């Protein structure tokens, strides 16, 4: 009666060895296919190099060595990737971490923000002698600020904006033009730049009120390109592709940071050093970035901030509840654009020179990547993402031509690895008894 199960023990070792050889065959087959695909893909693009010869006629030469090396690298790389995939398996990383370590990580996670802030405040003190690190810090903070600004539009209101760099450009050019034409100081121009940028934000926002999703994305992209093309071609105002140079540096309440007799160093009676200005710029952008952060956090608790987040979650429900979607969207665009304008004005005063080349679509994509990688709406995540992206970008400074290639690859791989960004959860805006982190999977990305 009883059906005896076949004895499994005997077969085990041969089964595992069979499975082993099967998986080796599988890995080899996969690697061979990848190598074959790579061979076809690279055959003409890598194997043959063209260049305009001395007479203007195109000449070409072959590079089969490089081709073979690349195909070999793809073959080896795909074996390694496949082995890693089988070794790591589909295990959930969360289960691998014991609960004690997990709770320790949670506490560490809560401390990251304050520790990072204190460290940032001390950066000019620690690295006073290393101008390179200070300059890099200023760059990172500029992108942190841009990321926080765009976060209002994309992360909070759920409006996909691919032309954010337009507002950055408007801010930079307004400061540059007001300063070089009318001699206005940085601190007077900063609000003007922010105001003009938010005006442009409303001008962009108004026509796109009815658009959703990818239509909105493409219109904002087109808008960014229009602004750039106008800057390039309106030579009489913007000096076209040559850009504007000699943009004045910021002053500390009217005291210039120069070696002059009325400069800050002379007034304080200390020896002048060019580092003073860099440190000053560092604290200016830090203050501006923190202002952006503070305003965002405060706005999230005001009705308008809640309306933004409600809009992201469900536009129809918003309208049904009597939220004016027009003003909600426009204020999101205007606020985000204003911070972009501030950052632009800072960029202009730091560089002393601006040209349309600084405001390409790549910048918009970079800022958007920072926001999405940061977890769309997480302030700390955006800061960490900016640090990672810009820092990683700097590592490739020596390999200028591979920089964008690696940046693009990193974007693809990061999206595959963590589509929801580095920080995969958010703090809730409203809660009953206790604030609990919400997984990003539960947060909608908005229709617009």
């Amino acid at each position: 009666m009883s059906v005896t199960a076949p004895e499994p023990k005997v077969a085990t070792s041969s089964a595992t060895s069979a499975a082993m050889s099967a998986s080796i065959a599988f890995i080899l087959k996969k690697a061979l296919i990848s190598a074959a695909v790579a061979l076809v893909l690279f055959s003409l693009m890598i194997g043959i190099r063209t260049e305009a010869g001395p007479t203007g006629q195109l000449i070409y030469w072959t590079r089969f060595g490089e081709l073979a090396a690349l195909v070999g690298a793809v073959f080896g790389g795909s074996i390694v990737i496949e082995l890693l995939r089988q070794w790591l398996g589909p295990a959930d990383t969360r289960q691998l971490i014991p609960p004690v370590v997990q709770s320790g990580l949670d506490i560490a996670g809560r401390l990251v923000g304050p520790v990072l802030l204190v460290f940032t405040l001390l950066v000019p003190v620690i690295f006073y002698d290393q101008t390179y690190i200070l300059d890099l810090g200023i760059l990172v903070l500029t992108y942190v600020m841009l990321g926080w600004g765009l976060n209002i539009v994309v992360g909070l209101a759920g409006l996909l904006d691919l032309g954010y760099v337009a507002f950055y450009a408007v801010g930079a050019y307004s400061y540059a033009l007001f300063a070089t034409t009318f001699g206005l100081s940085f601190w007077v121009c900063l609000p003007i730049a922010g105001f003009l940028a938010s005006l442009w934000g409303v001008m962009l926002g108004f026509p796109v009120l009815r658009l959703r999703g990818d239509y909105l994305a493409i219109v904002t992209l087109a808008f960014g390109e229009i602004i750039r093309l106008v800057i390039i071609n309106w030579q009489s105002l913007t000096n076209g592709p040559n850009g504007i140079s000699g943009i004045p540096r910021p002053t500390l309440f009217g005291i210039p940071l120069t070696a002059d007799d009325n400069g800050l160093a002379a007034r304080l009676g200390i020896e002048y050093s060019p580092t003073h200005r860099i440190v000053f710029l560092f604290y200016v952008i830090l203050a501006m970035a923190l202002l952006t952060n503070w305003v965002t956090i405060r706005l999230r608790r005001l009705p308008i901030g809640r309306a933004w987040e409600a809009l992201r979650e469900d536009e129809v429900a918003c309208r049904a509840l009597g939220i004016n979607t027009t003003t909600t969207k426009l204020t999101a665009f205007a606020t985000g654009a204003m911070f972009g304008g501030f950052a632009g004005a800072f960029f202009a005063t730091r560089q002393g020179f601006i040209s349309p080349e600084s405001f390409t679509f790549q910048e918009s994509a970079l800022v958007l990547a920072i926001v999405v990688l940061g977890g769309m709406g997480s302030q700390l995540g955006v800061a960490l993402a900016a640090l990672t992206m810009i820092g990683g970008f700097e590592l490739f400074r020596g390999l200028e031509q591979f920089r964008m290639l690696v940046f693009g690859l990193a974007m693809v791989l990061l999206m595959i690895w963590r589509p929801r960004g580095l920080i995969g959860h958010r703090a809730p805006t409203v809660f009953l008894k206790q604030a609990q982190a919400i997984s990003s999977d539960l947060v909608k990305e908005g229709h617009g």
Partner: protein
Amino acid sequence: MDYFAQQLINGLVLGSIYGLIAIGYTMVYGIVGMINFAHGDIFMIGGFIALISFLVLVSFGMTAIPVILLIVLLVSMAITALYGWTVERIAYRPLRRSFRLAPMLSAIGMSFVLSNFSQVAQGARVKPVAPIITGGYTLHESADGFVVRLSNIQIVVVLTTVALLLVFTWFVARTRIGRDMRACEQDQTMAALLGVDVDRTISMTFVIGAALAAVAGMMYLLYYGLVDFFMGFVAGIKAFTAAVLGGIGSLPGAMLGGLAIGLIETFWSAYFSVEYKDVAAFSVLIVVLIFLPTGLLGRPEVEKV
């Protein structure tokens, strides 16, 4: 009037090239619902492969231009199609069930990868080629000496486009893969339940879109006589504009939008200013979307609560 006729011809030729690229955007959008930002760069790769294979064939001593062009067409379609397949496999398939922004960013990243790959591999300088197809017809000569010309290359571009469109329309309407594509566009889950291999169909969509972009790249090379690594970006945005203008997801719409963008750009350069031709094309996009949010031939989106 003659000037107008000449610009009309130029605009239609340019519009055909945009239309071919736009079909790739609109097909992918119809099925996967994402903007394939890398498509413009696929077009650029197609141009490069056409250029390189042309050079190689000529240096092998081939002289019959039509034969060379046919081989170049097939080679660049095949290799570029493989590029399209690889891009989908690496960057989009792992993100199929992810949220909307992830594939979009991955696509933007892929676009950077492709354009910088060709910059690293082939150098940043513009690659010029001597005119391959020369000659043409004088259609009309006015009293003040203005000549309306229809060059052979313009005829080739338009005829190739029309022929490809016929084949492509037949392909989508009559073949098994075309039916699968339309089924996946309507309802992927239902299509999968009825035995359609959704992954394979989506791959095929990318492959076909890339092959059409390769043709566009080759036509661009023949028509303008140059390629460079950055040409994919602007052409890509304009082709996407064309797809949106025609109503995204609609194949005849993509072609119509391409022609419209080509004509707008050409007439704007002819009568107003060359510098602002791109601004004109993008402004038209914004204006059309304000008044016709679904494009010329698009289906209105039903709002569900």
